[in-house]
């Protein structure tokens, strides 16, 4: 049972490994060639990935996002648009980590347009990535693509906001008091388990909340934990 689950969770990896095995049986030279090709990308990735993760985490930690978020409402026109771009391009984590955060922002009054800007810029215009793009595709390519992308996002977020009403988004979900964890956003980094093993455990490569006794919760420890989660997947609402 656990073996099947493991395969399911890593389906893509299993398929890739299988493809390699078949390749090495049928045409060994091509298998070696594939490894060599991958080697180039692994080398490039290892040079840049650690530093990009550190830089994004530092930006995420030091830029006061709570303050910025106040300005994302419907009345804040140009300023809101600008700040939405800032939030999107400095935030840490993959795009799916942006979804729960944007839902929260919308509930707090951010306009649909600004949410679309955050999501789109989150995907394409990460600041640390711009240098990486310059390296492989040249400064001219990066600059032009960046400018065009920003223009495109400004235009299509405006059109989309005319087509969408606030009611089109799913309404207020019943917020439960207590501890909750968004498993869709979780990347399985195990930070929460390491920091607060009494409350969290890993099941199926993602974090889970253990059954807990609310009287024994160390609130300060928990709050620090919530801040440390790279994808803001943990929430605690007091009763």
């Amino acid at each position, binding site marked *: 049972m656990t073996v099947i689950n493991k395969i399911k969770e*890593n389906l*893509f*990896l299993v398929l*890739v490994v299988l*493809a*390699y095995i078949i*390749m090495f049986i049928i045409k060994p030279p*091509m298998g070696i*060639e*594939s490894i*060599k*090709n*991958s080697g180039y*990308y*692994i080398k490039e*990735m290892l*040079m*840049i*990935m*650690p*530093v*990009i993760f*550190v*830089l*994004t*985490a*530092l930006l995420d*930690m*030091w830029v006061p996002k709570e303050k910025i978020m106040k300005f994302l409402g419907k009345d804040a026109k140009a300023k809101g648009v600008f700040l939405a771009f800032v939030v999107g391009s400095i935030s840490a984590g*993959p*795009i*799916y980590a942006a*979804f*729960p955060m944007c839902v929260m922002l919308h509930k707090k009054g951010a306009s649909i347009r600004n949410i679309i800007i955050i999501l*789109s810029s989150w*995907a*394409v215009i*990460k600041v*640390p990535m711009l*240098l*990486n793009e*310059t*390296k*492989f*595709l040249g400064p*001219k*390519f990066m600059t032009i*693509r960046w400018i065009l992308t920003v223009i*495109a996002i400004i235009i*299509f977020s405006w059109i989309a906001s005319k087509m*969408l009403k606030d009611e*089109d*988004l*799913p309404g207020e979900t019943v917020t439960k008091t207590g501890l909750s964890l968004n498993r869709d956003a979780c990347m*399985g*980094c*195990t930070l929460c388990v390491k920091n607060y093993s009494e409350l969290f455990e890993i099941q199926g490569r993602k974090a889970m909340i253990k059954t807990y006794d609310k009287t024994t919760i160390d609130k300060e420890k928990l709050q*620090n934990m919530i801040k*440390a989660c*790279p994808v803001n997947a943990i929430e605690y609402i007091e009763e």
Partner: protein
Amino acid sequence: MDIFTMAIWVGTLIFLGVSLVKDKTKTKQALKMAFGMGKGMATSIFSIIFAIGLILTLLPPTEIANFVGKQSVLLATVSAAILGTITLVPAFIAFPLVGTLVNAGVGIVPSVAFLTTLTMVGVVTFPLEKKEFGAKFTAIRNGFSFLSAIIIALVMGVII
């Protein structure tokens, strides 16, 4: 190491130093966060890279360039954009990959369309986005992103 990678390293190390001086616990937390992100994504990143290595052996970039060159620009661009929506590739793999393709002679327009949809539109993330924002929002956002990927690509073809 090239100048651009160097610049990121130097900049980040300075930032890290300043951060460390200003607030030790915050910095420690940021480092933990970075490590956590890397660990969480490691499996999928390695799978994607090895898959790319395999695909580029079966379909060498020069042959891709050859094939794309024979199609009309619009058809090639739309196909490249569609191909980009299927997969979700982290940007730091997407850039060297598109770099390889451009150097092998694949046109700038299809390459840009591929690069933009690769990072902005996701069939994989569609169900998640729909769950959080509803079908209409998700369809409109992804649809517009797809369209702008093609427009951005075509405009870039004119400028570069």
